[in-house]
Structures are given as structure tokens and as C-alpha cells.
């Protein structure tokens, strides 16, 4: 079967099938739905970091034009918390319900919600709500403040790992480094605002939600409102990206749905940009200590990676920075540990390559530091510690082509021409730096259901309750159906992003492709089986034949005598509309292999010391993620991740004032992400394209996050090569490089 899949459309470079809808404005996002009689909600957000609400005065606001109701902790229905279980598919990161009590745990927390006839009236009235707080003294606004307070960080036992005797091995290593890296809070900042459009009919909830996971969202809402899941429907056919911030339900969605039920009208609630910095998750700041021991031949003899991140005062979120460290290199004596400490922030959440993005900044910077200490080429140092076995699981990797990624990336980049001396490569006013880093991400696969229908009119239909978050899922589902049926992809209708469809995965963790496509393929084959059954039955095109003797290829059923009939004719002859199939596929096989993806970034930076200007000028990334399903959308994922990695390296940081605990740069002008002009002139993505059939029948492992891992380290290492400055705290700012 895999040969048949390979032969056709898998791996082709196909434009997105939903592109025209998006370009022409027909794609409907969560806040594009303006339902009859709909009301609009706007939040009142806490202006203290921590404290108690003494009084909420809504008298003036209630008199204002169009105001329908104003909700707050003294006026809000009793709801239930979700158990927040990943296994039960009802996880959230912030478990506290909105308006649960009069406590303020972070600035920008919902403290009231105004519902009015228009958005403008709701916002105007929200500004007129007067809230009196008793603010607690000394808010905890940063990781360093949290650590300075002397609270003991809470160690997370489930994500730690230790093997051998890392501490004694380090102490006896002939070469040692002991360094600490700091990464800032980052905010996802998808273009599309978080938004909920909720309506109730006969006690059933329909929610248009900007969501990366409609099944989880459906399950959470059913738990919160105490309803059976079939009475809740969550729709998210299009989202303007999420980067993880839209994986789980946040308080605004619950507030919108509750308000809608209370006022008896559909309610739309869009989270304003500033509140998307506080109440819809963020990547928490980390402090990571790395110790590396190596022998004189460049073999690792010890590695420890101990990190701490802030979490909210209400929930525990662990940024697993050591998740790659424990298996990327060959090292018998190793420890990774993670701890958390409370701060007055909203609850953190997964942000593209959670754990790995900050973690590999630290590890791959430290590897560069050790290579320098050993006087080894950084690439050769990594190669010297290559392993094909995941020592943390004591299993072989299912498929690893990291050496090829190193070699092909290096060749394309011209790494052999690198003069290792700091500041030795110049071009006019600019000094050039070359750096590299490995990238790494786990490959995951979940349970999945799907439905496929082959229709008499020559089209096909596929559906699954996963989402296309802008990455091309619609397109690759069509490719998967086409690969088996021969039906051209422009005749394949794909529906995603509705919890009423067969249960599909969250679009996160880079697992949507590996999870969804096998289920789609299985459903397609079941549909073909149904077609065969119809064909051999009474009045069928192959009446009396055995279904098993028929083959299906290129849209035609055929027998061994050379008779061949188009599937559309098979259906028409029987006056049947379609042949359907449904399938369920399980998660990844356990126990035999460790499934991970690999790659390498090579980066050139240019530093103009005369004007303190740092720019990334060239990137080559070689990525080993198994079979490529769609070359165009895959390369696009990596290119986007490179842009995000540049942002992580040079620009992104969410700042809080340590005195007031309030956010500083919670807007799109002052929270810096790379703009078009920051993109390197030259970005070269090499997709290695080696199928991993141990993982699934398509051999694909997923490509959403790996490109962002290691990128910040590659930039930092290039900066060191250019300037001699080892920057261990992100983002790398020009003032860090200015001093002599």
C-alpha cells in the first residue's frame, strides 16, 4: 500500500486548496460570524497584579447606551471546572473559571464583562466600570523577582530524567563549562485575535472559537456547563494562527458562552490585543543552568541541564527545556530537571516548540561554548557525540538522518570556508559571523477518526475534527485521499474544524499530519471496500465477482480479466450517491522505537559596529522529519519557524514593570517580532525526505515546530563568532554588543 501512496501525489508541491477562500475573504473566522440578534461583550481587565476586588461599581456603566448586562464575581452563573486531563481530552492550562471569586492573580485578568448591543457600546461601558482593588504589596513580575523572594522552586518529577552519575562525572571531567542561560517571557501574538461567538438553542451550545483543538474545546465546555458533549458544538474551520495559544480554552470563551446563556442572545467576545498578552497564555521566562563535561577528544562525559520557569499563582505549567537534552547527544551521565515558581502572570502555555525552543537555545549555545573551549569546530564537536539511540528511553531512534542534515546543510552554507577566529570575516563596515546549531523535536501521533465519501458525481469528501491552523492540513488531507483514489485534489472537498466531525487531534505538537493522514487513508480504503461490495452485489458492475478480487486504481474498479469501470459509473448504475468509509487509527506504537525529528541550522549574521546594527543575512536549514507530504507547505513551515527563531534571538520579550507588576509592551508596536525587512535575503530549506515507516504508513513525522528549535542558538553562536561576545540572555540586544 505504501508503494501506491508514494507513487502519486504525496510529496508534491501543491498550493493550499483553501487559499482562494482566504484571499477572497470568504474564509470565516470566529469573529466574522455576526448572528441574528447578537450582542457583543467587552472585558474589564484588572489593573493590579495581585490583590482583592473590594468593589465593582457598575451603576454608571449600566446606564450607558446599549448595555444589556454587566457580569462580575458577584453576578455570574455558577459553573464547573474542567478536570483538565489531556487523556480525557479536556485539558486547559488556566483551570480557574472567570469571575470565580474576588481575587486578582495577574494583571489583565477578566474582572468584569460588559454585554451590549454593539462592540463600541460594550467597550465604552467597560471603560466606565469602576473597580476598587486592595492591591497586595510587592507583586512578582519577573522570574528574577520570584527567585529573589526566596520561595523554593517546585521540582517537576514527571519531566525530569537522570542516568549514570552526572554530578561526579562532571566533577572528574577534564574539560568543564558551567553556564546559565536566560530566556524571556514571549507572547504568541497570532494575527487573528482570540475570539468566541457563542449561541444557545434549546440548551445546546454552538461556539465559533479561534481554536487549535475543537474536540478539546467541546469537551471543556461540556464539563464547564455540565452538559453531555453532544450538546456542545465547537467550530473552528479557519484560524489566523495560534502558535499554541489557541490549543486550550481560556477564560474568555467560558465568559462568552455563559454571558450568552444569561442574556438569551448570541454573544461575541473578542480579546483585545493587550489582553492577549495576559489572559491567553505565554511562553514563560526560564533560567537554565547547563554543565558540560568533555574529554580531550571532544566526547561528552557529563551533561546536566537544570531549569526553572515562572508559572501562575493558580496553575503549574512546566517549560520542559531539557526535553531534547536528554537524548540528542551520546552521554552516559546526564541529568535534566525542571522546576517552577509562582509569579503574578496568567498561566503560561505551550508556544511553538515548548521546552525545546528555549531549551535548545541553552544547550546548543553551551555546545558551542564547549567546542570553543576544546578548540574544535562546532559542527565536528556535535558529530563526535552523535548517537542513533535514545538513551533516555533506551530505545533506538526509528529513523535518524542528523549526519546527513549536518553534511548537506554545511555544504550548502559553505561551512568549510569558515575562519574560526572571532571577527575574522569582514565585508566593508560589517563583520560577518557564522554559527550553527542542531534542531530537535519529538514525533507524536494520537488517536484519530475520519470519514471519507466517494461520490457519484466524481468528487470525494473527507472530514475530521482536526483543524487547519494555516499550515496546509486541508491540502494534505486532500492529497491523502487523492493518493489512494486517483481523484484529483481539486475534486476533493475537505471539512475540518468542527467538533461534530469524527474525532481528530489538536493542531499542536507537530502531530496533526502524522495523526490525521493514516485515519484519512483508512477511511478512504473503507470507502473503496464499500464501493467494491456494492459493485459485486446484485445489479452491480461486477455482480457475482468477489470483492477481494477487485482492485481500485486511478478512480476505477478493475478485475483480473481486464474489465475496468469508473467508480462514478459503479455508483450511478446502482443509483447510489456515494460509498462511505470511516476509520479509527491509534497512537504511535510504543516500546520499540523513540520517534524524533532532527535537523541543523547554519546562520550568517552581520554586525556593523559603527552603528551597532545586527542583522541575520543568511540561513540554511536541513530538516529530517521523515516523508514530506507537501513540499510547498512544508518548506513554508520551516521558513516561518526560521523567522520566529530570528524573533526569539533578537527581538521578542514580554516585559513587566517590577514595581507595579503591570505589562509594559503589550501591543504590536512595542512587542517586537521580525518584519519582512528582517528576513534574510537568503533562506534555504533542505527537506531530507526520508520516510519513517516505523511511525506511520505515510512515513511523515510532522514539521510545525522543529524549525524554531536551535535557531536562536545558531544566531547567538554566529554573533559570538562575529563579535566575541557570548550572549546568554535573550533577546540579543545591540547594547549587549556595544561595549568594548
Amino acid at each position, binding site marked *: 500500500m505504501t508503494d501506491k501512496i508514494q507513487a502519486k501525489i504525496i510529496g508534491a508541491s501543491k498550493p493550499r486548496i483553501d487559499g482562494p477562500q482566504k484571499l477572497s475573504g470568504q474564509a470565516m473566522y470566529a469573529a466574522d460570524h455576526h448572528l441574528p440578534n447578537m450582542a457583543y461583550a467587552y472585558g474589564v481587565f484588572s489593573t493590579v497584579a495581585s490583590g482583592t476586588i473590594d468593589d465593582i461599581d457598575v451603576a454608571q456603566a449600566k446606564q450607558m447606551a446599549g448595555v444589556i448586562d454587566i457580569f462580575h464575581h458577584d453576578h455570574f452563573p455558577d459553573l464547573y471546572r474542567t478536570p483538565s486531563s489531556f487523556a480525557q481530552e479536556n485539558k486547559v492550562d488556566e483551570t480557574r473559571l472567570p469571575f470565580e471569586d474576588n481575587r486578582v492573580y495577574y494583571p489583565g485578568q477578566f474582572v468584569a464583562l460588559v454585554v451590549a448591543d454593539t462592540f*463600541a457600546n460594550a467597550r465604552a461601558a467597560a*471603560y466606565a466600570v469602576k473597580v476598587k482593588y486592595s492591591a497586595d504589596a510587592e507583586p512578582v513580575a519577573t522570574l528574577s523577582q520570584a527567585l529573589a523572594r526566596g520561595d523554593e522552586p517546585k521540582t517537576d518529577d514527571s519531566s525530569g530524567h537522570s542516568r549514570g552519575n552526572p554530578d561526579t562525572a562532571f566533577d572528574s571531567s577534564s574539560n568543564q563549562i558551567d553556564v546559565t542561560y536566560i530566556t524571556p517571557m514571549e507572547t504568541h501574538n497570532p494575527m487573528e485575535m482570540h475570539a468566541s461567538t457563542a449561541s444557545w438553542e434549546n440548551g445546546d451550545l454552538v461556539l465559533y472559537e479561534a481554536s487549535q483543538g475543537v474536540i478539546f474545546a467541546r469537551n471543556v465546555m461540556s464539563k464547564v456547563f455540565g452538559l453531555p458533549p453532544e450538546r456542545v458544538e465547537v467550530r473552528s474551520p479557519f484560524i489566523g494562527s495560534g502558535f499554541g495559544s489557541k490549543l486550550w480554552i481560556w477564560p474568555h470563551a467560558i465568559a462568552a458562552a455563559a454571558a450568552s446563556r444569561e442574556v438569551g442572545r448570541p454573544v461575541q467576545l473578542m480579546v483585545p490585543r493587550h489582553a492577549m498578552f495576559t489572559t491567553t497564555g505565554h511562553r514563560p521566562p526560564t533560567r537554565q543552568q547547563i554543565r558540560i563535561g568533555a574529554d580531550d577528544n571532544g566526547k561528552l562525559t557529563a551533561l546536566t541541564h537544570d531549569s526553572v520557569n515562572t508559572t501562575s499563582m493558580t496553575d503549574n505549567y512546566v517549560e520542559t527545556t531539557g526535553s531534547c537534552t536528554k537524548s540528542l547527544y551520546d552521554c552516559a551521565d546526564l541529568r535534566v530537571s525542571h522546576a517552577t515558581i509562582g509569579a503574578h502572570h496568567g498561566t503560561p502555555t505551550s508556544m511553538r516548540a515548548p521546552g525545546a525552543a528555549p531549551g535548545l537555545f541553552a544547550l546548543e549555545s553551551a555546545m558551542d561554548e564547549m567546542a570553543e573551549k576544546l578548540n574544535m569546530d562546532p559542527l565536528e564537536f556535535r558529530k563526535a557525540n552523535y548517537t542513533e539511540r535514545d538513551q533516555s528511553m533506551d530505545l533506538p531512534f526509528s529513523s535518524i538522518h542528523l549526519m546527513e542534515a549536518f553534511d548537506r546543510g554545511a555544504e550548502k552554507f559553505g561551512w568549510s570556508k569558515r575562519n574560526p577566529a572571532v571577527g575574522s570575516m569582514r565585508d566593508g563596515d560589517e563583520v560577518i559571523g557564522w554559527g550553527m546549531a542542531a534542531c530537535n523535536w519529538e514525533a507524536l501521533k494520537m488517536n484519530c477518526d475520519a470519514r471519507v465519501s466517494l461520490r457519484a458525481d466524481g468528487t470525494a469528501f473527507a472530514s475530521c475534527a482536526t483543524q487547519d491552523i494555516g499550515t496546509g492540513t486541508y491540502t494534505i488531507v486532500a492529497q491523502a485521499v487523492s493518493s489512494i483514489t486517483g481523484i484529483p485534489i481539486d475534486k476533493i472537498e475537505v471539512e475540518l474544524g468542527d467538533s461534530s466531525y469524527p474525532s481528530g487531534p489538536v493542531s499542536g505538537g507537530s502531530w496533526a499530519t502524522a495523526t490525521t493522514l493514516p485515519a484519512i487513508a483508512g477511511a478512504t480504503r473503507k470507502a473503496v471496500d464499500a464501493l467494491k461490495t456494492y459493485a459485486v452485489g446484485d445489479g452491480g458492475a461486477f455482480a457475482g465477482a468477489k470483492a477481494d478480487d477487485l482492485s481500485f486504481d486511478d478512480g476505477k474498479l478493475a478485475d483480473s480479466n481486464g474489465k475496468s469501470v469508473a467508480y462514478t459509473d459503479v455508483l450511478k448504475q446502482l443509483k447510489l450517491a456515494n460509498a462511505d468509509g470511516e476509520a479509527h487509527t491509534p497512537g504511535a506504537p510504543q516500546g520499540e522505537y523513540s520517534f524524533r525529528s532532527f535537523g541543523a541550522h547554519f546562520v550568517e549574521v552581520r554586525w556593523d559596529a*559603527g*552603528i551597532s546594527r545586527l542583522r541575520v543575512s543568511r540561513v540554511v536549514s536541513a530538516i529530517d522529519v521523515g516523508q514530506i507530504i507537501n513540499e510547498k507547505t512544508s518548506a513554508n513551515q520551516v521558513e516561518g519557524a526560521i523567522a520566529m527563531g530570528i524573533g526569539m534571538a533578537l*527581538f521578542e520579550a514580554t516585559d513587566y514593570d517590577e514595581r507595579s507588576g503591570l505589562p509594559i509592551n503589550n501591543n504590536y508596536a*512595542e512587542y*517586537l517580532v521580525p*518584519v519582512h*525587512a528582517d528576513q534574510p535575503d537568503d533562506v534555504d530549506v533542505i527537506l531530507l525526505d526520508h520516510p519513517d515507516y516505523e511511525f506511520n504508513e505515510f512515513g511523515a513525522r510532522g514539521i510545525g515546530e522543529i524549525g524554531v528549535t536551535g535557531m536562536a542558538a545558531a544566531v547567538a553562536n554566529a554573533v559570538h563568532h562575529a563579535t566575541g561576545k557570548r550572549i546568554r540572555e535573550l533577546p540579543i540586544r545591540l547594547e549587549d554588543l556595544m561595549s568594548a
Partner: protein
Amino acid sequence: MRNFAYQRADSVDTAVSAHAGQPSSFIAGGTTLLDLVKLDVMQPERIVDVNDLPLYDIEELDDGRLKIGAMVTNTDLAYHERVKSDYAVLSEALLSGASTQLRNKATTGGNVMQRVRCAYFRDGVSPCNKREPGTGCSAIGGDNRSVHAVLGTSEQCIASHPSDMCVAMAAIGATVTVNGPNGEREIDFLDFHLLPGDTPEKEHALEADELITHVTLDAPVKGNKSHYLKLRDRASYQFALASAGVIVATEGETIREARIAMGGVGTKPWRARKAEQALVGQPANEASFKKAAEIAFEGATPYEHNAFKIPLGQQAVVRSLRNATSA
């Protein structure tokens, strides 16, 4: 956003009279005003729309000056032939600012009135003498890296002026024409923006209900070469950490005349006259430029996170002078 009365004026006189009598704002492109009204930082009860006023012309005066209507957009001004040829520093400054979409909306008069980007001014709750006189300056001792000044600051306010256009105008020299209840008058551009001193809430020399109608650029310096250099973290769409607009005329290798203005580092568009004087008669070389740059930042006051702006601003001046004179 709070509700406000809206009135569209069809003449300067009706605009001025409509503005009088209650907390009002003129609206042109709206790129600052609407932003701050939505944030609830500005709460005008009346907005007087001046988009219908006949202030869209760029007029070459007989004395060589260029009279720019207040409603001329940043885009139109940047691409105006005379601006590109005789006032390149202004064209470059305009095009380094904001984004294409914003420049298409933003106007000459509005840009002069641009408000500061200080987070504590914009958050609506932190102590801020500009927003609520007497409450204090949160930027001092707070986050003051990017949009705070090292020149012209006071104990009451350290926010930097955000405009690029105004830096170029400060270098060129200009006159602001305003019209109000007492008729028309002219204000020297360098006197238009005020230092914060003890009254940071008072940002400019406009009297009550006065409206900017024109900005008239001085006649260009003969034989000038100019350059605007803006330094920032990312390559576009960021307010200047430091910028320099320079105009230089040379005779042979010797500097005959120089103008230097700086952005991102001052509480107003910052003209560095002493630095200019130090350049006159000197050779156009790195040593002269560095000396001038040092003079330009004499007396600068660094704050917790923006001390780097002093060397960075000097670098902007030096490189800008080099680029101008080597062109």
C-alpha cells in the same frame, strides 16, 4: 472608546470655532488620536474632522521656501519631487517612519502633534505627569530602554518624541502656521515643541483651539547633501532608538555649513547647534564627525536602561555625516 460628538469642518474658521468650548480634538489621519482614544488615554468629548479643509497643497514660495499644507500625507510629502531633490533628509525620514499604510493616512500637521510612546502614558493607570499632572513619572526607575530620552528630560518626564519627520524638519528649519480664535500666527518650528520641564502635559506652543494649517520649510541650504539614519532593533516599523538627520554643505573637503538634528534621544526633535558650529570650517572626516557627535550629547542624562542611547546616538550622527558627505 467613549462616545464623542463628531463634526466635520469645511473651513479653518468653522474648525476653530467648533473646537472651542469643550474638550475637543482635531482629527486628520487619526493615527495617533484614534489609537489613544481606543486605549481610553485621550477622552475628547468632541472630535472636529479637518479632512475637508483645503490644506492639501505643497506650494513653492518665491523666496525658495516650501509651504506644506497640514493635510498633506506623509506619503505624498515623501515622494514630492521638490522634497526628494532639495530636502532628501525629509523624504528619507518620512519613509523610515511607521508603515506604508500609516504613512498613507498620517498627515503633516498630525505628525507634528504625535504623542509619545511611553508605556506608562499609554497604559492609562500608571502614574504619569503627562496624562495626569502631579502623579509622577513611572518611566524613571522603570522600563525606559526604547522610547525614552537622554536629552531634554526632567524629573517629571523622560519620554522621547517619536516623530522622524519632525527631526528632519528641525534640521531643515521651518515655520509652523497656526490659526485660532485670535487669527493666524507663525511659530518657529524649533520653538513649537516644548521641553517637559515641570509641565510635561504641555507639549507644544499651540494656544487653546489653535489649528496647524501649514508647515513651511526654510529655503534649502545651497549645495547641500543630506542623510537621515534611523537606528533601531528591527529593520522597520519601530520608533527610533536613535536617529540623526544631517544636512551638510562642503567646499572641497571643508565643511561650510552643517545642520544636525536627532530623534529617539530627545524629549523633543533635537537640534544640535553646538555640534553644527564645531563642524564649520573643519575637514569632512571621521575625526570631525566624532567630535561633533560628542558635543551633540554633552550634558546627556542616561536612565536605568537607556545609557546605550548616548553612544548609539553619536554613532547615528557620525555615520549620517559620513553618508551625507560621501554621497
